[in-house]
């Protein structure tokens, strides 16, 4: 395998992992506040079509990304109203959001079926991009790739180094205690949920505006669910989300490996396409085997409704 193939595999892995990083980090913040939003798939789908439609109409990929974020946040707001204000079951509401979001995206996307957008050129960072092999992979990338790293750093700082992050985690561990010392539990959960939604929407918009860049129904293809699994796999730690997302990115572009290896075997494309889903199952099995890993690491109030007694 020569260097240029290695570089192109690295580039593709990082790009494929980026929407997962963005969506999974958003979901991580939501879950750290104790809210389990299983609607990630629907949020990403709506973010993808909203972003695509905006970019298509306005000609601006940046506006597309913003529209994706806004649409994701609105979807999460609906979820918040159901689960935080109306105290509906979070599992059922999340499923509803996914089913609704995928349907809504299909409906909204009909006029754009198979439409394409101009390819957004990568943002080259001088000097660093000239490093052999890894330079082009790390420093000649889509702007949103750099943004995903900034997001990662920001979230690590926020959750573990800032006072507000501490409050958010307290809300996720014990909403009753946080409420009793005067923190607005419901408002914090709303904000965390909407942040997660905005990131899910951005992840979706990344797919449709920067990655492919075209719209086809069903293009999110389970990435929202994989992002949810990544959060479990990462045992709610941002750095493991990052590592896991790139591992999955690598699995998703496995056909490049097959081509790069020069192997002459004929593998049905469907087999390679199924690898990310198989990998998700394997990863869940490995991480869940020890009951205590999940119990000790998940936010204690995850998925539990909370209603402060006024």
């Amino acid at each position, binding site marked *: 395998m020569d260097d240029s193939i290695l570089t192109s595999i690295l580039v593709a892995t990082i790009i494929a992992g980026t929407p997962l990083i963005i969506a999974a980090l958003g979901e991580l913040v939501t879950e750290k506040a104790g809210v389990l939003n299983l609607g990630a798939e629907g949020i990403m789908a709506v973010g993808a079509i909203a972003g695509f439609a905006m970019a298509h109409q306005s000609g601006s990929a940046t506006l597309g990304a913003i529209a994706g974020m806004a649409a994701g946040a609105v979807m999460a707001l609906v979820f918040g109203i159901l689960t935080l204000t109306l105290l509906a079951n979070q599992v059922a509401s999340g499923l509803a959001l996914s089913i609704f979001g995928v349907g809504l995206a299909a*409906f909204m996307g009909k006029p754009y079926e198979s439409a394409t957008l101009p390819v957004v050129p990568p943002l080259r960072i001088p000097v660093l991009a000239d490093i052999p092999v890894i330079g082009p992979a790390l420093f000649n990338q889509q702007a949103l790739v750099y943004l995903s790293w900034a997001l990662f750093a920001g979230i690590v700082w926020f959750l573990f180094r800032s006072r507000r992050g501490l409050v958010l985690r307290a809300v996720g561990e014990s909403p009753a205690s946080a409420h009793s010392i005067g923190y607005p539990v419901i408002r914090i959960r709303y904000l965390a949920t909407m942040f997660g939604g905005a990131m899910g929407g951005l992840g979706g918009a990344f797919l449709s505006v920067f990655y492919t860049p075209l719209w086809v129904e069903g293009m999110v293809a389970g990435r929202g669910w994989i992002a949810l699994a990544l959060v479990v796999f990462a045992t709610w730690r941002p750095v493991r989300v990052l590592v896991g997302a790139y591992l999955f990115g690598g699995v998703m572009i496995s056909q490049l490996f097959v081509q790069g290896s020069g192997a002459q075997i004929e593998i049905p494309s469907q087999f390679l396409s199924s690898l990310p889903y*198989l990998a998700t199952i394997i990863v869940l099995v490995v991480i869940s085997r020890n009951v205590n890993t999940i119990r000790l690491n998940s936010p204690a109030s995850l998925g539990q409704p909370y209603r402060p007694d006024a």
Partner: protein
Amino acid sequence: MLPRLEARPEPSNAMRYASPLLAVALTLAGGLAIFAALGKNPLEGFRVFFLGPLKDVYGVSELFLKATPLMLIAVGLSVGFRANVWNIGAEGQYILGAIAGGGVALYWEGSQSLLLLPMMVVAGAIGGALWAAIPALLKTRFNANEILVSLMLVYIAQLIVSWLVHGPWKDPAGFNFPQTKMFSDSALLPMLIEGTRLNAAFVLALGALLAGYVFMNRSFMGFQMQVAGQAEAAARYAGFSAARTIWTGLLAGGAMAGIAGMGEVAGPMGQITEHVANNYGFAAIIVAFVGRLNPIGIFFASLLMALLYLGGEQAQQYLSLPSSISKVFQGMLLFFLLGADVFVNYRLRWSGGKK
């Protein structure tokens, strides 16, 4: 003064049954609003979408045809949902049922045996149940989340059927379309009414509703699963096996979804294609909830969801709207139901401070 939620002393039974009706009413109202927002006359939209499909006997038979897989899948899922076993992968189990049942039809092509159709039903049930056995095994053995595992298996099932109809099972005389041969007549479910497509799968669905009713309300295992869903600690204390609850819940859902998949390929489709699933596995989740996990409720909820499917087709034909508007309506229905359910346990108080 803003209204405030106040906990009811005990859950309202009346509200439990009123809430699905309220959700339907809100969905209809939402539908009118959507038609208006899309620049269509709302009343005309309502007429086309909700009344248009039912204008003749054929239309009504199509309603029951579409409701059949939903009834089958939803009753199977509700066995698990009652015990908090979240099988979300019915869509995949449906596809495996279609592959297994259809595989029997293709393998014994042209067989005139009267056993062929019963074998296809059994194969469909086994195919679906095996696919559901994977999350059951991984949940009981490794504690892996059944929601995510069963969902991932949906995508894998779609790829398997895609591979089959593009590859080994492709009809050699099919002009390279990704589909299998048409099944022979002996492998097609008999029609119930001449001139319609309503077939024997509907009878199977009614049987499944009845069996589901007996299992959930009259059997000890059904009782154990209900306890497991409502009070896990009590179930554990009583010595009810959590593993058996998980296995029963998933296998019931998988087998029923598998039969539904078999019924589609041996019914209206007559062959296996890539688009065998039609989202029934996900729509049935909504049916199970709207039907209150109760076979009688599921019967009516299936008809309602089937109407939303048919309404979408009508809207495409007469209002030039994408048929995926059905999915928007279906999702709205579940949202409104979940929202309305708050009033089972809470009531509104308009006065602020006083108790």
